């Protein structure tokens, strides 16, 4: 006891000189809170706020290669926007982005959910198989793209040789304008399955086992159990998976560049590749910014959904 009481006299001395002002202490605490927040705020402003605002401003400017030298980018009103909207390619890319996103999401989600439900059963090698399915997630997008381009090659690809065994003729996976988008969606589904499966599997672990026991006692069929217990209880997780999936799918770029370069004949151009093409191939940064802004806007709408879903989950 003596050791703990020893410093006691020191404290009153300090407090006597500094604590009489509770307002000051409060202010200091406030300052401390802001001190901790400051790095995050500075980081957000620098790396999210600044580029975002810059991108919006840029879409109203005539931003050409000379701008980098002169620093001059005259404002040109809605010229960039008009040019982008009048271009046939924009409508095409928008439609293809929608098809790509919806197709990918449905495929990834359904297969991911089916696998997640499957793995809740106990069977030998469950863990090993589950980790094997994670593999596509570990492979960088560009690598997947390049490997799949070889697999899907019409003449020398493995897939067509394999299908040939069953008498299925040469499928022009990436070389036909009507087929290429479907192929790109299929590859993206393959890439997205692990993410969906892992998150949904995690959600399934949260569903109380007793409910299933009760359902079994009531004699509910498997489908009925799934519909009335699994799905409703999984709803918050499903929202999160779909919204996150949407945001990562809608801005697709690397996969398409590696698989088809937007071709053949622009049949796999999306808003992502169009931004890239405008900014880095044509060096028309204003037009690139317009398409980029549209993408940000679309994502922002879904980000709001995501935040709301998360908040509801918190309650």
């Amino acid at each position: 006891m003596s050791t703990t009481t020893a410093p006691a006299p020191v404290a009153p001395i300090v407090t006597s000189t500094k604590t009489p002002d509770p307002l000051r202490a409060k202010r200091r605490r406030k300052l401390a809170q802001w001190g901790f927040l400051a790095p995050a705020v500075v980081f957000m402003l620098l790396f999210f706020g600044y580029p975002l605002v810059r991108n919006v401003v840029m879409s109203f400017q005539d931003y050409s290669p000379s701008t980098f030298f002169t620093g001059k980018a005259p404002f040109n009103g809605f010229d960039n926007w008009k040019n982008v909207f009048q271009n046939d390619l924009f409508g095409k890319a928008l439609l293809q982005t929608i098809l790509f996103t919806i197709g990918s999401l449905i495929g990834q989600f359904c297969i991911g959910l089916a696998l997640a439900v499957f793995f809740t059963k106990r069977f030998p090698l469950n863990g090993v198989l589950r980790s094997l399915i994670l593999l596509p997630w570990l492979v960088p997008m560009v690598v997947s793209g390049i490997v799949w381009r070889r697999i899907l090659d019409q003449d020398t690809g493995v897939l067509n040789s394999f299908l040939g065994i069953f008498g299925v003729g040469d499928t022009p996976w990436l070389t036909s304008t009507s087929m290429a988008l479907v192929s790109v969606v299929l590859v993206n589904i393959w890439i997205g399955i692990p993410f969906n499966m892992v998150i949904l599997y995690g959600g399934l672990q949260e569903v109380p086992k007793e409910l299933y026991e009760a359902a079994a006692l009531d004699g509910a069929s498997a489908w009925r159990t799934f519909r009335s217990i699994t799905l409703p209880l999984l709803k918050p997780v499903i929202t999160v998976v779909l919204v996150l999936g949407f945001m990562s799918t809608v801005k697709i770029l690397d996969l398409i560049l590696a698989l088809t370069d937007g071709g053949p004949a622009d049949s796999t151009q999306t808003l992502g590749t169009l931004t890239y093409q405008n900014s880095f191939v044509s060096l028309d940064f204003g037009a690139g910014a317009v398409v980029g802004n549209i993408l940000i806007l679309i994502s922002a709408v879904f980000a709001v959904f995501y935040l709301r879903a998360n908040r509801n989950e918190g309650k």
Partner: protein
Amino acid sequence: MTASSPDGLRHRRRRRNRRVIVPLTVVSAIVAGTALSGCGQQRDDNVYTVLNSSTDDSYHGWDAATLSRCSKKLGVTIEQQSVPAAQVMTKSLRMASSKSLPDIIQFDGSEMPTFAETGGLKDLEKLGVATDDIPRGILDYGSYKGTYYGAARTVNTLALFYNKDILNKAGLEVPTTWSEMQESAKKLTQGSRYGVALSAGGAEDGVYQFTPFMWSNGGSETDLGSKQVVEALDYWKALLKDGSLSKSTVNWTQADVNDQFMAGNAAMMINGPWQVETLNTKKGLNWGIAQIPVPEAGDDSVGPLGGGMLTIPDIGDTVREKTSARIINCMTSEQEEITYALNSWMIPANQKAADTWRKKVPELSSLADQVATARSRTAKLGAGWSSVSLALQSAFQAALTGQSSESVLKHAQQRVESGN
């Protein structure tokens, strides 16, 4: 204890707070400061930088050797900074805006006009870069609106590569005209092997490969809807229809074409000398090289002129820029050009160097002939090339996947004219 220790604790906590707040604030201020100020202009008097796209090990090594020889000769230190080819332009532009441009930038021929148009490049002749013994065509290749901005060390073009064994076995001569090529390709197409391979991918690779067909037939990039261009595209379509050309061609880059040729899946291919290094890694592959066939016997085979060119960006320091010019003179000296050309299988830009080179590698002389008539993609259009290139790739892909050549090329020309 209950009375005293909370006070002590609070006191200690407060002190800790301050101990944390100060560094945190300082750190965020430093981060903000450095990020805002960017990379300022900090040049070492005796160190010169060359920005290039030699990211391949071998190319990086050859360049490093050249630069170290020139460093010794000129008494300065020359460093190279290599980024992927597609990033040279954007990296240079970023460096321009942060006023940290390198001393020398090696641009691809199709990109130089875009950079020159911004006014960011220096007139090489004024800075003292030698132009003796450089053929007119290559001087034009390095010029934009009459000013010489880019000095090429070596140039390249496309040629017809053929598998000697396969042609010999079939008893066929190397084709020289379109009809000969079409016939030979048809005969050589057997089993999983195609007669000919080329890249019609949706990027510059495909456009580069289309130009010799378009130009040898008298077509021009300024009039994509013309009869000559339509005929050239119809020729590609005919090869595809015969089955001599794989349908995957619309999805192949030039490197893919090379892989197919090496694997024996194609008897002939259109490709460039930069593939030779890889080709030679395949033992037992007996290949030859010839000029790209022409529409009718007697026509000129006009290929595209390619290759990097050394430019001096405007850094606002004439003394330094003059030294950069001396570095370019060293890099383009006869001996350096020959060394680089022999390593990389390209053709020296300097006429005297090219003559020596021809004697050393007679098997590649058809490449040198092809270069003599080759044309620059940007000679007519300058910075406007990129929009023509985009319209053209979309057009030939649409034609090869089923649409009529005439309508897609007319549409492409409209697209170029409307600026979309």
